[in-house]
């Protein structure tokens, strides 16, 4: 039954389905868990959005990605930083100031993270999870 789903409601249902499962789910499995009437691409889009916001982490499962929800301390802090960044408007300006406040150790970590060669097919810019 597909009736009266508000905007953002689908994200909630997908997230709820991921939390309800006891293992990471592929987009196809998520689609089944939410209710089969959702198009695969819709589920894929929602999962990508959730991943970008740091609400889920992505794992390689055969040829597809599997998604797992997160709320550990590091993930939560990252989500908050991400939300603040989005609220701040000019990303470049906010990031510049932010990097200016970091300790040398933090800077080294950041440089290492950004300088690390990305695994093929993955997008390191999207990685905000722990």
């Amino acid at each position: 039954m597909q009736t009266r789903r508000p905007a953002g409601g689908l994200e909630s249902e997908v997230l709820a389905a991921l939390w309800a499962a006891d293992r990471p789910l592929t987009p196809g499995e998520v689609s089944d868990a939410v209710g089969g009437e959702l198009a695969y691409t819709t589920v894929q889009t929602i999962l990508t959005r959730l991943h970008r916001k740091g609400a889920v982490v992505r794992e390689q499962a055969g040829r597809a990605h599997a998604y797992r929800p997160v709320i550990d301390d590091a993930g939560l802090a990252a989500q908050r930083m991400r939300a603040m960044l989005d609220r701040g408007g000019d990303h470049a300006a906010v990031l510049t100031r932010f990097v200016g406040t970091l300790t040398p150790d933090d800077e080294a970590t950041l440089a290492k993270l950004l300088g690390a060669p990305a695994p093929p097919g993955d997008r390191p810019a999207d990685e905000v999870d722990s």
Partner: protein
Amino acid sequence: MHASVYLPLFIAGLFGLTAPRLALRLPPAAATWLLSVGGLIAAAGAAASLTLLGFTLVAQAQPLAESGHWSITALRHEDPVLAPVAAASIVAVLVLAVRFITAGVRRACALLAAHRLASGLPPVGQELAVLDDPAPRAFAVPGRPGRIAMSTGLLRMLRRDQRRAVLAHERSHLSHRHHLHQTAAVLAAAANPLLYRLPAAVALSVERWADEDAAVTCDRRSVVEALTGIATDTGAPRRSGVILAAGANDVQRRVRALQAPVARLSIWRVALLVGLLVVAVVAVREAAQDTERLFELAQAAYRSAHR
């Protein structure tokens, strides 16, 4: 001033007694509005009555009479309100005002706390907030935007349709701003103890409202099952009074309401409650006019004495 000034007090009592019971037989949305807004009107009417009753005594104070140019003797002579009654009214107005303000401040603090909680619950930026807790818990946190909180224990316990039912239920609380109706009921009860039953009645009726909304999204049986699943929950954070916890309120009655045929909007029940409130408003108007006439008489007496 005749009996009309006492009528709003009587009506507040009658409304406080009958409205919760009548509302149970109305569709939950209509019941909620009647209880919350009606409660405020009933409380305001009673407060106006007490103020009018008390003011005739206050006005007999020398400095006030001087500046208002009315005769104290004429006022005392013409005023049908007994001095002890007026004195009791003054005390009542003061006590109720303090209660009202205290409740208002407490409510505002709870709302602020809820807003802060809503923006901080993980995952940030999502409608759904997930609590890492094995106990089955679900509640709506009003905020900008409001959040739906569900525990991991609950999410793992529910089936797909039940998850959807709980989401729809909590979403209904947020989109219809049920916390404001509850705030109105709490304030009305604070302003007038005769309305002490309203907060519980509104709490039950907003839960029924959200249950009915959930039953539109998925079938009634899923809602009932989800409801009884959360019913074991006792750990919802009740300290912040604006958070609406599913399953914390009268689950048996709600299940019965869900299984019963949908309540029809009975015109005479609504008319009875609205009629009561209209009578209260008219009575306050009448009493205010009586008071005005009384003071006109006292001013005329003052003028003829100072000519």
